[in-house]
């Protein structure tokens, strides 16, 4: 267990992988496979998060509206995009917006590519995390999302910046987090295997 602590101090990602790798090659391999480096994904429309979340400062939950209610954060329905863009004359002629309108006219959903994809046997709930770190702790939304999704303000299309691997999840679940913004009470994340494994 002390060893674990050591690894924890050794920190996320590379450093720990190195440590592990030294200890046992197999582990090294696993570690490497688990924590894939940040990767840029080809999307049907190169959606500029930087403009929306950054320049416009739109709340993440405005578009990813299911995140507070459901396990999945949800890709905004086409209707949502149109809701604003129908009335924004200034950018109507931009190529990306054109694409958007095409989809809308065809009434077919945009085949977005998954960026943050978890293995199918993982039971992850956006709802719980948003409730705790956004509503309960009353942090700015960016802060609540950042630990997993990175600084989206700076990206055009979203990029995967964290390994999203088991050890990485556990490392955060083991730490104590404040219950809410008033009380000093803290608690750590659930540690039953069944909380995340389905």
């Amino acid at each position, binding site marked *: 267990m002390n*060893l*674990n602590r050591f*690894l924890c101090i050794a920190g996320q990602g590379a450093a*720990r*992988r190195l440590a*592990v790798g030294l*200890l*046992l090659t*197999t*582990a090294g391999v*696993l*570690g490497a496979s*688990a*924590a894939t480096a940040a990767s840029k994904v080809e999307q049907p429309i190169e959606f500029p998060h930087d403009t929306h979340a950054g320049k416009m400062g739109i709340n993440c939950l405005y578009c990813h509206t299911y995140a507070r209610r459901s396990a999945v954060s949800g890709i905004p329905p086409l209707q949502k995009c149109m809701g604003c863009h129908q009335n924004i004359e200034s950018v109507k002629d931009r190529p990306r917006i054109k694409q958007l309108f095409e989809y809308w006219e065809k009434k077919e959903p945009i085949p977005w590519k998954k960026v943050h994809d978890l293995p199918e046997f993982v039971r992850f709930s956006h709802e719980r995390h948003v409730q705790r770190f956004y509503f309960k702790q009353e942090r700015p939304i960016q802060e609540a999302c950042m630990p997993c999704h990175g600084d989206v303000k700076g990206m055009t299309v979203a990029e995967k910046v964290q390994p999203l*691997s*088991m*050890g990485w999840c*556990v*490392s955060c679940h083991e730490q104590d987090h404040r219950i809410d913004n008033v009380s000093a009470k803290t608690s750590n994340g659930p540690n039953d295997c069944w909380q995340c494994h389905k």
Partner: protein
Amino acid sequence: MDHLNKEKDIREDIAWAQINKDVLRSLEKPRPMFWVLFGLAVAMFSVGVGCEIYQYRTGMGVANMNNPHMWGLYIATFIFWIGMSHSGTLLSAILHIIHADWRKPIYRFAEAMTTFSLMTAGLFVMVHLGRLWQFYYAVPYPNERWTWPNFQSPLLWDAMAIFTYLSSSIIFLYVGSIPDFAICRDNAKGWRKTFYTVLALGWMGTDRQWRNFRVAYLTVACFLIPLAVSVHSIVASDFAMSQQPGWHVTSFPPYFVAGALYSGCAAIITLFIVLRYTFRFEEYMTMPILDKVARLTFAIAMVWTYLNLIEFASVWYGHDPYSKDVLIQKATGPFAPFWWMMIFCGSIVPFALAVKKFRANLTIMMIVSLLLNLGMWLERWMIVAPTYSHGYYPWTWDHDQWPSFVQWGIVFGSFGWFGLLFMIFCKLVPSVSMYEVKEMVYHRTLANKHSREA
């Protein structure tokens, strides 16, 4: 002084050069027959491999296990091979400590047997796993998932014990044969020369080397004995620690160890006869030695029988109706033929060893030893299967489950694998320890001189 008027374990006038010559002959270019047998072993092994591949790709179902028959021949045979492995330790380590020097001509191949049967047993643990490709989850190493195996589980103890035992018995085997490697080196040519040169680690036979050698050898021997006992006790606790009727028995660990030594000795007799015949080792693997081994085996057989009876008694007079139920099923149920066969082979047949005339007859000894081994294998099977078919829960009783060809195939293959390793061994390592035989001869002559002077 009755040992004088007995036939001698070994001729005292045998020349040391002669010993080298005889033993090294066993390493010479093999006869055609060797290749025939070798091919046979390979064939057997590949049957096993074939079955395993099939099972690996299709799933354990093809072994025709089910609920409740969760374990099958694999575990039974696993225990069998572990048992085998006790022979070497017994002969080399234990007898070494108690200075029974008649062991010297025969301990080398016994040790080899230990190592190889352990390797075979290890395979069965793997074969048994439903998800072989994930076996490393059972290895305690710090990993990305931050997970550890369950240190409460007897299976984990098993894995560790076996691994330790295997590695240390390999060391033991190797250390013990360094001086002989040196002899081989001095007599070998070509690639064999380099081969033995590497293995001999520059052994010159200086006093210092001999002193260190003795210490090292003794240390490993002492280290090995508790291991040998523990490893089979732990295998026993796989069952004793669980709470199934017929398994949950306190006397299991000693019972298992006894059984192990028993099957080990039986196997030694078999290989003794085989080697004596193939390599014409009549000079070294002499009848008196066989006689001693046989008597030892008989003794152990009786211990085993005794422990067996104890187990029955404790179950019979115990408070647990379920275990009693299982015992009755063993004796009367569908497994009865095998069970009685085991009793016969394990407790009746050994009485043949009590007869001097039989002990002197190689053919009979061969047959007996094989029967004993069969009995010991059946014993393991009779521990695993009946409890499953007749456990606590009557709704899941299943009396007509029978292992599929896959299970039989893999068990069959394991013998091929063992044979394979052993044959290779015989051609690379002197299967009789030359330097120790020399010692033995030397000691005997001294002893005689003294007794004559007296």
